[in-house]
């Protein structure tokens, strides 16, 4: 009886607090995220479809959009392959320096993208980079070219797949893999038939996050791309360019496209997520 009355009282006491909290969070998200994003959309369509039409018929912009997709997809593929590999290494194997590697993997999230860009130029710069001149002599230009932009994008989105896959791998454990081995499966068969299906949702979630992050990358890409019109200018760089040149309509329309893809990614994730049985 005593317990119940205390429980009832705390519930009653909490109720107004809960509504206040809910209101604060909603208002916060509204003013920080929803309203500004809505305004981008409204500005993009201020003159109907004119802005959107203008940018989609501008060959420089369509080139930039295509380049963005190519770079993002390439970066996501690289990050997925290495991400799954590194996750398995981290979860299933013990080796000296594992903690250091783990800490290093969080670096890309904490370092500013612009620092990443500068660092890559220092290493791969064609003229006075540490490794760049050698590669350039071999006919491979990294900085101010697509490879450098892919590199920068891979760098900034590196931990996203790993941080999704590692907990899933830890949760499923390695007994199923051991069972597969004892039934005659080699390492590759075990990975393809057992490990991959059981971490599938983690990988998909990581891929979607990486894709969203890669499409929107700006700082690191800006430094390494050289921002050459029609060659190494990506969609985010187009937005900046148009905005600075007072073509606000074009800037909003391009920004709207980027936001649209990102929102689509988030929706895909939220649809997938309940199916993961977390």
């Amino acid at each position: 009886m005593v317990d119940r009355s205390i429980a009832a009282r705390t519930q009653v006491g909490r109720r107004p607090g809960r509504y206040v909290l809910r209101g604060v969070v909603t208002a916060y998200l509204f003013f920080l995220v929803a309203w500004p994003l809505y305004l981008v959309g409204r500005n993009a369509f201020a003159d109907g479809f004119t802005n959107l039409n203008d940018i989609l018929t501008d060959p420089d912009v369509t080139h930039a959009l295509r380049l963005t997709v190519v770079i993002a997809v390439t970066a996501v593929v690289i990050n997925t392959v290495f991400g799954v590999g590194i996750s398995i290494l981290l979860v299933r194997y013990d080796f000296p320096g594992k903690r250091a590697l783990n800490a290093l993997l969080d670096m890309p999230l904490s370092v500013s993208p612009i620092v990443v860009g500068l660092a890559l130029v220092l290493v791969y710069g064609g003229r006075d980079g540490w490794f760049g001149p050698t590669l350039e002599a071999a006919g491979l230009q990294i900085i101010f070219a697509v490879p450098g932009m892919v590199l920068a994008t891979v760098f900034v989105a590196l931990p996203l797949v790993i941080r999704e896959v590692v907990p899933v791998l830890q949760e499923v454990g390695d007994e199923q893999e051991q069972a597969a081995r004892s039934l005659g499966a080699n390492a590759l068969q075990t990975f393809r038939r057992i490990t991959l299906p059981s971490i599938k949702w983690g990988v998909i979630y990581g891929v979607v996050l990486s894709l969203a992050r890669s499409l929107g990358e700006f700082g690191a890409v800006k430094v390494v791309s050289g921002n050459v019109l029609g060659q190494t200018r990506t969609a985010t760089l187009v937005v900046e360019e148009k905005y600075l040149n007072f073509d606000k309509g074009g800037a909003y329309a391009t920004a709207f496209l980027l936001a649209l893809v990102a929102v689509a990614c988030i929706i895909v994730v939220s649809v997938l997520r309940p199916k993961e049985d977390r």
Partner: protein
Amino acid sequence: MSIEIVNVGKRFGDFVALDDVSVSIPSGRLTALLGPSGGGKSTLLRIVAGLERADTGKIEIEGVDATGLPPQKRNVGFVFQHYAAFKHLSVRRNVAFGLEIRKRPKDEIRRRVDELLALVHLEQFADRLPAQLSGGQRQRMALARALAVEPTVLLLDEPFGALDAKVRKELRDWLRRLHDEVHVTTVFVTHDQEEALEVADEIVVINDGRVEQIGSPDELYDRPANEFVMRFLGPVTQLGDQLVRPHDLQLSTDPADASGVPGRVTRVTRIGFEIRVEVTADDGQTVTVTLTRNEFLALGIQVDSTVRVRLAPNSPTTTTSAPAQRAAAPSLAATH
């Protein structure tokens, strides 16, 4: 000999899991590795399967040196305590896994899987996912999956440990009958001495990373090699410096009888058909004697009766180094 384990040693850091273990496991028999938790028995089984690598020593399976072979080349079937079911595959696909890996023809796989599902009584569950099965059904599926590849040896790591008592007993009987049908060399790990005594043809007692004794259930029970085996396989009580089984002790109330140790009944406890009589000997030692109800009634004893305790002829005993139980310090340890 089907499995030869020769001088196998294994450490995990400072912890010695196995200390120079040598065991020969005969073909076609059901062998139990019995011992307390953390004694090294599971580690030994995993080394035989290739899931763990021995630091020293050699493993031979059917005359083939398997020491350096990866698990997939040893042709062993392994059953895990927690089933290790492939969660994303149906029961049928789980059982078929090893055959699919071996690229057997489709109709052969179907036939063999049907056979095995019938053997483990899971025909009607073929298209379910493991999550839709009970623990006992999952473990039977895991057994069918391990048997599908026609392994040279079948290894079971605490196979019934995660199941409740009733299912455990059913599966235990069922494993014994299955083995009598299939005759594959089988080794299973257990910490339950009753399970080992009931199911196994041969028992290897392992403790602290060492083999304490190898033998048939009868040999182990009747001729325990040392105090550990004596204590681990059943209840014990102490008479003088000898460890004996409480049910091997006899009581006599005949004043003319001069054999055995004189004492006084200090406690009588009835547990179903069994009567547990605590006798305090004249030198202060407390001895537990178990009698059947009929024996107890025939003796007509009660608390404070004067009796003599003696050991039935040909009963197993071991000398113990432990100090005798004194009446002043009553303890439950003697009844295990």
